[in-house]
């Protein structure tokens, strides 16, 4: 357990009669960057808020660096930097007043020069009043306050929401630097390119249950590919559907057939070698296709 920053076992959470989490199991290794994905209402925020002890689950175990957040939330919070999905700040404060307040809540133990460095890197003017900031600049305040004490664990709900592409890149750099400094990063996102670029591992949650845990590369390899084959003479495409993981989508006069192939293409290509193939096309699948598969279909 000491190798894990977060351990979640059998987490269940009800809101009244609605069951939001159906027994979530998840392990996040120390020092890794884990992308936490799922459609709206799938339980991402509920899981994060259980980790922070903002809400109490009806069943299950949570440990953050071996600490139970329900019995020692302060210790967990001291080790954590949190960026909520719906960030709200004190509108009448200036950015530096807000950050000073957050610093005071942490016992004034952080280096203010690091706060200024973060603000500078994110091109954030800390003398401005929060109510006059754009949503992107408010998000930068959120990122600074999450990173400013160099936490062991970063819990980030949609960290780059509202940021322009340049700033997104800067945030990725900051998160990688945090990881290099020993931090664990647990972030939720809907930006799939961000997940591909940043995450070492991905967990997909759907209807309150983790339906997939893998690396982005493994997920891509697991993708269902669409293969279009043109034959030199009419061939019955049904012959190929006997292969495991191959499904016929459409055919035209036996001269052209489109298949969906789960996993690698080895079996299909070997079988095709006995037939006069004129042309073969495969569409490379992105993470998006994989996520859509999980987002759209029922789990199990």
């Amino acid at each position, binding site marked *: 357990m000491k190798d894990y920053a977060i351990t979640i076992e059998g987490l269940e959470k009800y809101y009244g009669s609605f069951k939001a989490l159906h027994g979530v199991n998840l392990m996040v290794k120390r020092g890794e960057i884990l992308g936490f994905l799922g459609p709206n209402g799938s339980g991402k925020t509920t899981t994060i808020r259980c980790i*922070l002890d*903002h809400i109490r689950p009806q069943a299950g175990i949570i440990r953050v660096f071996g600490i139970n957040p329900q019995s020692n939330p302060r210790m967990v*919070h001291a080790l954590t930097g*949190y960026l909520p999905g*719906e960030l*709200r*700040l004190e509108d009448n404060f200036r950015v530096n007043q807000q950050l000073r307040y957050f610093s005071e809540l942490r016992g004034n133990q952080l280096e203010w020069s690091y706060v200024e460095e973060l603000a500078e890197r994110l091109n954030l003017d800390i003398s401005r009043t929060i109510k006059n900031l754009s949503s992107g600049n408010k998000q930068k305040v959120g990122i600074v306050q999450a990173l400013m004490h160099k936490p062991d664990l970063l819990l980030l709900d949609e960290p780059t929401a509202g940021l322009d592409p340049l700033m997104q890149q800067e945030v990725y750099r900051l998160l990688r630097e945090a990881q290099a400094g020993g931090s664990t990063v647990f972030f939720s996102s809907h930006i799939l390119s961000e997940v591909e670029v940043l995450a070492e591992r991905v967990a997909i949650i759907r209807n309150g249950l983790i339906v997939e845990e893998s690396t982005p590369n493994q997920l891509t390899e697991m993708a269902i590919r669409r293969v279009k084959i043109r034959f030199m003479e009419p061939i019955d495409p049904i012959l190929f559907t006997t292969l495991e993981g191959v499904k016929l989508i459409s055919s035209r006069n036996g001269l052209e057939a489109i298949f969906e192939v789960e996993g690698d293409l080895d079996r299909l290509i070997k079988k095709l070698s006995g037939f006069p193939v004129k042309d073969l096309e495969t569409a490379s699948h992105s993470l998006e296709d994989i996520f859509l598969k999980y987002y759209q279909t029922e789990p199990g």
Partner: protein
Amino acid sequence: MFVELDYTIRRFRGQIIGWGLGLSLFSLLLVSMYSDIKEIDLTAFTDSYPQEMMAFFGESMLEFSTPHGYLDLEFFNFMILIVGIFAVGNGANLIVKDEEEGLLDLVLAYPISRSMFFWGRVMGYVVVLMLILLVSWLSLVLPSGSASLDLSPGELLRPYWGLLGQLLLFGSFALFLSMMVPSSRVASMITSGLLVANYLVQGLSNINQDLEKVVKYTPLQAYQGGYAILGIDTDWLIIIFEGALLFFLLAWWRFLLRDLRVAGEGGWKLRELIPFRKKLSALS
């Protein structure tokens, strides 16, 4: 806790200045008028008032030319409503408003326990109320010699204890209610309604004898207003402060147990209160 105390006072800075300034101007006006009021024979004036109105405001109408009667009728009688609404609104908003606005979700992810946070806010709230009343008291005390109120600063302070007790009682009740009902708005509305109703019933009980039976169980029965200048009823005052403490403790207990919302208002959850709900839903 002290970070939150300081933060609460800073947030109320504008209200302290606004309310303090308003109350002090009003106090100064009252004090400056008293020298003229005490010279006038108001018997003919009060005789022209309807009996019901005289009864509503009680003895202070008859003792209008005395310092305690004057301050009771012109100041403390209304202050319980005016500053009371402020206390109730801010009591209801003290914590839950931040939850509704989504601020609490982030602040409570910092290494501050819910208890520290709660009591820091409550202490800040009490200090703010005391500061506003202090400014008002100073405005009465500083020019009192020249205006011939003939009251010592200590005597003038007495009614403020009763007023503070009532403000804390209604404010703490609003805070407790905000933890129970869906929103701070509803908590504020209910508590303000109770305060106004209590005020009216208190006044009307001087006209309608039947209301006297009801009013003796209400908090404002213990409110002496300006008459505390003549002597504080400490037994009642202690009960009122104990009542306020009880509601603060209940609010604290609810705050420790509750799930925090991300933002927005909650629901009534009335279905949860229906007994055997699970059995009924299982049967259906």
